[in-house]
């Protein structure tokens, strides 16, 4: 059976060139980069070379790159480190309703500790407004965290404007750019970010490696303590193979960015067009223009998300949904709900996220397989026929 992977926002396969690059570091070159002997020194050199590549990839200085275990740790470090370092200055944090739980739950945890929190609403496209940020800023505001691109609907936030406003007001600005890397340009100055989160496994590096960019001179403090690694900003022996992989992956996605994002956008539009042509009662979620080139989020009315994913799975297609049943939680996607989408429609949402291994054939196979699945699921629903009669009467 044909296999199609349409879940690159969840994770990506390791790029073969990246895999090749790390083999020496998980076999022979095992030294601890902190060791001063020859084994340590050769690894240290490779780690610093990777750091330089990563810095270059996002327009930063190498000393502003801190390696972490991934997006969740970077988000925690960014927000907690900024909040604790500035707690004498103020106690107010601003974020948005569509953030990843790594940001939302971190902010909620700080609220429990006594910080105050404003969670900004979004419009129907999942977009945060600059005016709302401006209005929420108080004398006590010390951190603003707004994601660069949304992981569920792909909407690109007005991060530059928010970052500039934060800078004018002397407030630290963090942005989660986990979904952006390799799809759209990520440059710390263009995003006006003081703190920026990246995760390796979202762009063809392995899981367990990420970056927190910390702008030089930012009033931020470490949240974990130990050795002197990463300038004491994130102590612990480095994930050497992860770092080497991240460096290589960064180099690859940055060099292929323009070509690849155009290719993905064409495939994305082919999916959207194909689905809208073949299947009635489908809505495209997210911003119509300001969105990621590799992500499609659809609401398919009168279809339950988990049954849809399961049916696609049986046909060899891996995708994801905003359905509550697909996760441990009982609530449907907080992102879709905050965009004003009904819980029932959120249950029927489908997220397809494309990557470098996808091609036209995958899209055509998906479109051929999807229509009969939808027909079957709708035919078994007690609501579909009732609603069709209602729609006809309307």
């Amino acid at each position, binding site marked *: 059976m044909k296999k199609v992977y349409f879940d690159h926002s969840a994770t990506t396969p390791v790029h073969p060139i990246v895999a090749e690059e790390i083999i020496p570091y998980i076999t022979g070159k095992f030294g601890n980069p902190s060791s001063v002997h020859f084994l340590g020194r050769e690894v240290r050199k490779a780690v610093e070379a990777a750091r330089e590549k990563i810095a270059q990839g996002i327009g930063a200085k190498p000393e502003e790159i801190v390696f972490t275990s991934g997006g969740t740790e970077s988000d925690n470090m960014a927000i907690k480190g900024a909040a604790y370092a500035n707690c004498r200055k103020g106690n107010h944090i601003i974020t948005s309703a569509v953030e990843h739980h790594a940001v939302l739950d971190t902010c909620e945890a700080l609220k429990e500790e006594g910080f105050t929190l404003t969670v900004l609403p979004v419009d129907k496209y999942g977009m945060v407004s600059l005016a709302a940020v401006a209005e929420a800023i108080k004398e006590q505001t010390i951190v603003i965290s707004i994601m660069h691109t949304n992981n569920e609907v792909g909407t690109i936030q007005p991060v530059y404007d928010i970052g500039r406003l934060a800078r004018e007001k002397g407030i630290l600005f963090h942005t989660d750019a986990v979904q952006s890397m390799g799809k759209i340009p990520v440059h710390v100055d263009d995003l006006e970010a003081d703190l920026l989160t990246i995760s390796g496994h979202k762009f063809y590096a392995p899981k367990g490696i990420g970056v927190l960019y910390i702008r030089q001179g930012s009033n931020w403090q470490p949240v974990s303590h130990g050795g002197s690694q990463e300038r004491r900003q994130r102590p612990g022996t480095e994930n050497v193979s992860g770092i080497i992989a991240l460096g290589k992956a960064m180099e690859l996605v940055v060099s292929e960015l323009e070509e690849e994002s155009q290719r993905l956008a064409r495939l994305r539009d082919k999916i959207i067009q194909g689905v809208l042509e073949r299947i009635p009662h489908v809505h495209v979620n997210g911003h119509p223009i300001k969105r990621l080139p590799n992500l499609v989020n659809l609401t398919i009315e009168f279809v339950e998300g988990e049954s849809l994913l*399961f049916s696609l799975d049986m046909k060899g297609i891996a995708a994801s949904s905003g359905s509550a*049943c697909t996760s441990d939680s009982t609530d449907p996607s907080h992102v879709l709900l905050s965009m004003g989408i009904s819980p029932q429609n959120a249950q029927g949402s489908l997220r397809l996220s494309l990557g470098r291994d996808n091609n036209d054939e995958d899209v055509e196979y998906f479109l051929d397989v999807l229509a009969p699945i939808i027909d079957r699921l709708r035919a078994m629903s*007690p609501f579909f026929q009732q609603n069709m009669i209602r729609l006809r009467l309307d």
Partner: protein
Amino acid sequence: METGIHDNEILIDHFMNSRNLGKIEDADGIGMAGDPSCGDYVKVYIKVDKVHLTDIKYEVFGCPSAVATASVFSELVKGKSIVEAQLIDNHDIVEALHGLPEQKLHCSCMAVEAFDKAVIDWVMKSIANSKEEFESLGLPF
């Protein structure tokens, strides 16, 4: 996401090739049950000859476990007397499916509940019909 249901061949078969799926236009009883917490619903249609369940069909909006439990349930009760059918409960469904993941156990209750409501609907209709019959014959009901 639990992986349990993806390894359950019986469940997959009942989801992909659901038995008795659909509706009965001239049903003797109709019942619907749902779980508002997850938005799933099952609607059961029954056809009864004297006291035997001659046909059962259902429509379902729900996850694969909700579909499969309704399918299995329909097989378990079809052809039985109403009294026998009402003894089939969610444990029998889970057993017939060779188990359900913990967080999906609640799905198995929906078909049973919808069926019970369909039976009540049939009883109420039968009473109403009998009443009409008695009245048309001029007999006290």
